[in-house]
């Protein structure tokens, strides 16, 4: 009965979403506030129903109810409880239900934020959101129904794909989906504003927290996914420029641009048309990502569903929402009132430059992702576009952007002082350059570009720190004054500094990868293998039995420059239900670096072992966490707090004191 209640709740949510799409829209058009307020209650109701439905599916999984086809296909009675739980979204149907759940959750949040949103905009956005929900609820119900039943129920399920039986699955998809789907809100706001024809600083203010929220979660989701791939796939790689990864990276790039352009729009009431377009494009890229991953046009870990009917359905959704909103944009955008002009040297101009670079970077990823697909469609030729392409296109776009970032960061609004900004960053630049040169001298004969990359990363971190310091520390003031100035500094300034420093940290981690090393050998117990700074000695290989898998576990002693560290374990698992092997890499974190051991096939008495030395690799993900933290700080800026009287410093606080 639980499964049936869940199924019915989903069907009911479809009906409610239809109302949510129609009635508030009518209210906006007719200026009828009563009708418009139906949007809020419909959004809340629809969230409640989808949540009920999701809980029903969770219950079916946790109780191993094998009369539900989806549970049979993706679960096994011997799975540990946590994986029974995460199996819910470890498959196509369940993950689409999670998608819809998060979509309606965002709708409900918009409905609840009474005081921070103009009611007209809220009603319009909820109507658009309702339309998106209708499309995806229909998709779930008609093509990917997780509540299909089986009778008689089979005795045992087919188990979840072993690669997905990992804590990573508990975290990565929900984070990523919150990011993806969060951009549906900015999309809804943009479309609502286009229909209404009113776009101003109010709009930017209203949209910014949602953009930030989605961006934070997308950042975390991508970082988590990358770390998961790093430790689970056993290749020691953390980014493969795989189309599925790119599918999440493109909305991230566009979203990053959007965060910056909404600032300009809020402060200066300009860049409106571009911002609206970005808001539309960002969500369109999210939809495109969903299409790429879900339609089965490519095969990867993520493509657990390849059903042409689903692909066509998502393509229709994609065409409707992207095409529809762009048509609306082409029709209404020329009617928007343009904002004021910029001085060429000013923070707003710097942000425009940022947007141009980010959009270009996003376009290169877009081409690299779609070109092989289109080519295969037209000629049947299969090519793969990998790191060399992106090194030649993406990197050259990003490097100048990152180099001028600190300058833009210290320019004032309206009219900046380029020379002053350059001077303020000279110290950071000099220090970073010195560090890079020292590294080149120190690691003679090593990779040349890597020290420069580290220098670039350091430049970003240092300039962020110095920028903060300059705002807080003044001459002849005690620590008490510094503290009070630190408190007085708007959170968004802190957020900017953290986010930019985070980018720097990630760059350092990425650049340091040039010094990583790899060694492969067949080891018998007692034999050793050295890679970079680490040496392992194989102690033993023993069988072990897990709840639903068997494993061969290899224990290694780990040495770092003659000193013994805690020993390390790597294993190969066979999941019995599917007879599928997975590798569990052994990873020992040592400072910010990691020693990474993975097992290959057993051969004549020994076992193939790969050992990697990954210097400073943790910085990649720490950087992402710091970026997300920066986003969080910016999100808690006073001016976004619900019902708080507006009290930010739009023009002055970030301008330089007139000395």
């Amino acid at each position, binding site marked *: 009965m639980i499964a049936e209640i869940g199924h019915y709740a989903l069907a009911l949510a479809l009906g409610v979403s239809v109302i949510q799409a129609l009635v508030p829209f009518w209210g906006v058009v*007719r200026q009828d506030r009563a009708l418009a307020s139906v949007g809020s209650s419909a959004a809340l109701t629809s969230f409640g129903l989808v949540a009920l439905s999701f809980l029903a599916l969770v219950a079916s999984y946790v109780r191993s109810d094998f009369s539900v086809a989806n549970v049979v296909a993706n679960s096994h009675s011997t799975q540990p409880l946590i994986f029974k739980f995460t199996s819910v979204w470890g498959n196509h149907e369940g993950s689409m239900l999670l998608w819809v759940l998060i979509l309606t959750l965002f709708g409900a949040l918009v409905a609840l934020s009474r005081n921070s949103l103009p009611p007209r905009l809220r009603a319009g956005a909820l109507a658009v959101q309702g339309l998106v929900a209708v499309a995806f609820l229909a998709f779930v119900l008609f093509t990917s*129904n997780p509540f299909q039943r089986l009778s008689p129920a089979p005795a045992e399920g087919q188990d979840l794909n072993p690669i997905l039986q990992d804590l990573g699955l508990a975290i990565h998809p929900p984070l990523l989906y919150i990011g993806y789907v969060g951009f549906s809100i900015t999309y809804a706001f943009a479309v609502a504003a286009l229909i209404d024809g009113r776009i101003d600083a109010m709009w930017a203010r209203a949209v910014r927290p949602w953009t930030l929220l989605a961006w934070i979660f997308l950042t975390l989701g991508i970082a988590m996914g990358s770390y998961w791939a790093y430790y689970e796939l056993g290749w020691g790689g953390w980014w493969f420029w795989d189309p599925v990864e790119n599918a999440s990276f493109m909305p991230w790039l566009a979203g990053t641009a959007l965060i910056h352009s909404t600032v300009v729009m809020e402060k200066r009431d300009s860049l409106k048309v571009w911002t609206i377009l970005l808001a539309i494009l960002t969500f369109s890229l999210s939809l495109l990502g969903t299409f790429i991953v879900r339609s089965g046009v490519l095969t990867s870990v993520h493509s657990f569903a390849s059903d042409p009917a689903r692909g066509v359905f998502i393509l229709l959704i994609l065409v409707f929402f992207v095409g529809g909103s762009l048509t609306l944009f082409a029709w209404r955008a020329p009617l928007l009132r343009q904002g004021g002009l910029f001085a060429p040297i000013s923070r707003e101009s710097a942000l425009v430059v940022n947007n141009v670079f980010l959009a270009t970077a996003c376009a290169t990823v877009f081409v690299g992702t779609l070109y092989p697909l289109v080519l295969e469609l037209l000629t049947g030729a299969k090519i793969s576009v990998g790191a060399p392409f992106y090194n030649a296109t993406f990197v050259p776009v990003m490097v100048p952007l990152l180099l001028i970032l600190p300058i833009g960061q210290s320019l004032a609004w309206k009219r900046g002082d380029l020379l002053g900004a350059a001077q303020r960053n000279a110290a950071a630049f000099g220090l970073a350059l010195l560090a890079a040169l020292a590294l080149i001298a120190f690691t003679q004969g090593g990779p040349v570009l890597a020290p420069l990359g580290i220098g670039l990363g350091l430049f970003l971190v240092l300039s962020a720190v110095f920028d903060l310091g300059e705002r807080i520390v003044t001459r002849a003031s005690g620590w008490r004054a510094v503290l009070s100035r630190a408190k007085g500094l708007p959170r968004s300034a802190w957020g900017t500094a953290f986010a930019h420093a985070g980018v720097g940290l990630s760059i350092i981690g990425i650049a340091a990868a040039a010094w990583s090393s790899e060694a492969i050998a067949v080891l018998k117990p007692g034999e050793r293998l050295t890679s970079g700074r680490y040496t392992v000695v194989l102690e033993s290989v023993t069988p072990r039995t897990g709840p639903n898998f068997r494993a061969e576990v290899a224990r290694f002693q780990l040495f770092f420059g003659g000193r013994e560290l805690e020993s390390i374990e790597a294993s190969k698992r066979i999941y019995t239900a599917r007879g599928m092997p997975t590798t569990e890499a052994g990873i020992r974190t040592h400072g910010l670096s990691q020693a990474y051991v993975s097992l290959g096939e057993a051969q004549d008495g020994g076992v193939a072992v790969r050992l990697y030395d990954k210097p400073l690799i943790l910085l990649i993900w720490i950087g992402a966490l710091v970026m997300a933290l920066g986003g969080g700080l910016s999100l808690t800026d006073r001016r976004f707090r619900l019902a708080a009287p507006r009290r930010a410093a739009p023009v002055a606080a970030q301008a330089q004191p007139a000395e």
Partner: protein
Amino acid sequence: MMLWAILAAMTGAAIFALLWPLSHGRTEGFADVADARSLYRSQLKEIDRDLARNLIGVGEAEAARAEAARRLLRAANDEERPAGETEPSLRRRRASSALMLSVVPLFALLVYGLYGSPDLPDQPLAARLEKAGPHQDFAIILARMEAHLAANPADARGWSLLAPIYLRQGRFDEAAKAFAAAVRYGKPDTDLLAGLGEARILEAGGVVTADARDALAEAVKLDPKNARARYYLAIAKEQDGDGEAAVASLQQLLADAPPEADWTASVRARIEQIQGDAGRKAVAALPEAERQQAIRGMVDGLAARLAEGGGTLPEWTRLIRARSVLGDKPAALAAVKTARERLAQDAAALAAIDALANELALKETAP
């Protein structure tokens, strides 16, 4: 019934939640303009405050103030008249209420009616396991045992019960693992070791692997009389090319067999097969006439032994085929007849014999 009551209640609650704002919603128009005005007013105040704290230059502050003021004026111009409770607004409410009352249940029932299975009860694992009794699904007992062992992997007794079941189901790989676990966690047991050997052999497609041989040797060490282990060790000898030693071991095994043993027939068959293989090699070397003679002699020997009584289906099959191939149709027919009498209790065997007779076109000419 219960389910439909719940579904009806859900529908009612959803519609009620949608209707609520229509009856309690405020009737005035949107207050955006006021919101916008307060935004720009506070922006102006902000500039003044910053100027007072000397955070902005006089010129810039002037410019910023002018900009905010312009926006404020523009917002004020956009002001619209509040709608109020009018005849059209009432009509709109009635229309949208009707829309909700019809659209929501219509969609829900239509979609659920198409895809739902309201008559199917839940069947969680716990409930299925509790449905114990003589008619319990065997797979469920198995699932229960597996679940138990998953939780207590060191339960040697559990493994020793599960292993033979896997073996019988032909899941040799898992059987071998289960036997190995039972051996690892339990006391040394000759039968489990022999089972482990057998599972490994079957897993390897009948080849006695080194692993299997180790397990068998261990079993025989614990109990020199272990028939299963001795049987497979004998097979191992045959595999090594030592047919005579294999036959000798098997004959020794037969000699030691207790009278009630039910496996002697298959051991005998195996001996015969090994000897047959050896004989066939010898026979193949003879000149044509003598070879025919030798074969006929062997077939007659088999017939004579079967005539004494007993005989398994494979033995009878072999005899019938041999007679037929040798062109001795009456003898073949006689063999079919006797076989049918002897194997009368075994329906499957009878069917096999009949199929064979059909295949060889052995039809008794109707009297």
